[in-house]
C-alpha cells in the first residue's frame, strides 16, 4: 500500500513509545490512565497511557501498538496531541482529525477510530481510578 509521508514518518520514527510500568504496576497507579483496545485476531491492538498531573493536565503519554502502519501512526500521533492538554480537552480529539492530519486512505479509517477509542478508554480509566464521575469536569469528587 502506498502511504503518505506523514504516516511513513510516524511509522519509522514513532513518538512516545513505551509504558509507565508493567500491567500490574499501572493498575496501582492513580495518576496513569490506560486504554487497551482492539483484538489480536482483528490484527490490531492499541495501548495508550496518559500520565496526569495534579492540575488535571496530561503531562506525558505513551503508546504501544500491534497493528499495521496506519494503526502505529495513528496512535503515535495521538500521544503527541494528548500531551499538554487537560483531560477533558483530550476527550475532544476526534478520529476525523487524525484521518485529516495523516491523510489516511479510506480502508484505514478504522485505525483512527481505534485511536479515538483508545483515548476515551484511557481517560475513562483515569477517571474511574480517581473516582471522577464521567460527566463532571476535573473535580476530585468522592468515590461513587
Amino acid at each position: 500500500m502506498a502511504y503518505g509521508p506523514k504516516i511513513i514518518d510516524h511509522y519509522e520514527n514513532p513518538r512516545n513509545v513505551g509504558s509507565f510500568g508493567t500491567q500490574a504496576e499501572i493498575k496501582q497507579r492513580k495518576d496513569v490512565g490506560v486504554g487497551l483496545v482492539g483484538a489480536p485476531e482483528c490484527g490490531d491492538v492499541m495501548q495508550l497511557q496518559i500520565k496526569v498531573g495534579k492540575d488535571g493536565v496530561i503531562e506525558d503519554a505513551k503508546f504501544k501498538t500491534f497493528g499495521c502502519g496506519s494503526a502505529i501512526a495513528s496512535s503515535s500521533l495521538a500521544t503527541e496531541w494528548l500531551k499538554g492538554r487537560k483531560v477533558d480537552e483530550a476527550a475532544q480529539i476526534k478520529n476525523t482529525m487524525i484521518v485529516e492530519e495523516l491523510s489516511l486512505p479510506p480502508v484505514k479509517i478504522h485505525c483512527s477510530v481505534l485511536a479515538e477509542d483508545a483515548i476515551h478508554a484511557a481517560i475513562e480509566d483515569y477517571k474511574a481510578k480517581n473516582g471522577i464521575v464521567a460527566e463532571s469536569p476535573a473535580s476530585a469528587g468522592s468515590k461513587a
Partner: protein
Amino acid sequence: MPDNSTNLKLPIYLDHAATTPCDPRVVEAMLPYFTTIFGNPGSRNHRFGWEAEEGVDKARHQVAELIKADEKEVIFTSGATESNNLAIRGSAIMYEKASEGSGKCRGHIVSCAIEHKAVLDPCKRLQKEGFEATFLEPPKDGIVTAEMVKAALRDDTVLVTIMYANNEIGTINEIRQIGELCKSRDIIFHTDATQWVGKMPTDVYADNVDLMSLSSHKIYGPKGVGGLFVRRKRPRVRLTPLVDGGGQERGFRSGTLNVTGIVGLGKACEIAGQEMASDAIRLGKLRKKLEDSITSRLDTCQVNGHREKRLPHITNISFGFVEGESLMMAVKEIACSSGSACTSASLEPSYVLKNIGVGDDLAHSSLRLSLGRWTTEQEIDYSIEKIVGAVKKLRDLSPLYDMHKEGIDLSKVEWAHH
C-alpha cells in the same frame, strides 16, 4: 553488515511462488516467433504455418518430456487457472452421473480447503449447478493423505482434485497414493501442479494422474501460457471443452495458439529439466539458513506446515506479536507475501493458514518467502538481518509482546472486538 556490500541490488525478490522472471534463454528462444516465424500453426498450406507448427511441436515435446507424458497428451492453455477450470469443469460435466434437471446429484467431487482459488471456485460453481463437493480439511502439517481422500469417496464420486504442492506453505500432498486410490476406483484424478512442475521431478504415469495443470510463469517462462496434461491411455480421459471454435488442441481448447508463449514455456521446461535438481539442493540450503537463523534469533516464531514434506524454495513463517503489514513495511527492501488481512483486499487473513489451524493472530503475522534461480546467499544474509531487526523493532512497539513477557495469557484476555 551486508548493507555495505557493493553488488547487492535492492529490493530483493523473494516472491518466486507468485511469479518468476523470464530466463534470458527463454526470451531468446521466443524472439523469432514475434517477427519472422509469425505464422498461424493452423495454416496447413504454407511455410509460415509449418514453421510456427514446428515451434509448437517442439515445445509440446519439451513439456511432455519434463512430466514424462506423451506429447499428444499436452494441451496448451492461457495458464494454470484456465487449465484447472478446463480439467475440473470439463471432466465433471463429461463424467456426471445424473442429468441436469433430473433433481438428482450430478456427481460428487473431492477437493481440499487449502487449494488455490482457481480450483476451489470452479468446484463451488459446479456445486451451484447440481454437483456435490467435499473439501477436505488437512491437519496442522497441511498434508492431504490418501487416507483422507479415501474416507471422503462415495459411489457417485466423479472427480478428485488435490494440488501437488501448496502455494502458500509449500507442503507436498500424497499424490502418488491418491492417484493409485482413484485408479482403483475408476475416478478421474486431477492435480494442480503449478508450484511443483519444473521444481521437482514429475512422472504422470507413475503418479497415476489423469489430469495435471502446469504454469509457465512459475518456472521462468512467460506469463499468459500454461498447460494441461490429459491422459490418453488407461483410461483415455475426455473433457467437455470450455471454449468452442476452431477445434485446436484436439478440440479441448479452441483458439489460435499463443505460439511465442508456448515456445517460451517449452524452453522453460527444457531448462528446468536440466537445472531443477541442482536448484533444489542450492535453494534448500539457503532456505535452511534463512529459517535456522531467524528461528534461533527470535522467540515465538513458527514455520508453518510440515517441515520435511515440502518444496525446497518456499517458507512460511509466523512471528508472534507483530502484524504482517507493518512487518512488510519494515522490510520493504524484501519483496515477499504476507498472510495478513491488511495486505489483501478481502480484509481476511490467509484461509490456508486458518484452515491448518494457525490462529488468526499468527495468520496475520506471517511472511511467505520464496526463493528462486538467481537468489544469492548474500541476499539471504541481508534478508535475515532485516527480518530479525524488523521483528525486534515491532515487538518493542507491541503491547502484546510486553504482556507475553509478563506472563499474561493473551487468549484469556477479554478483548474489545471491533
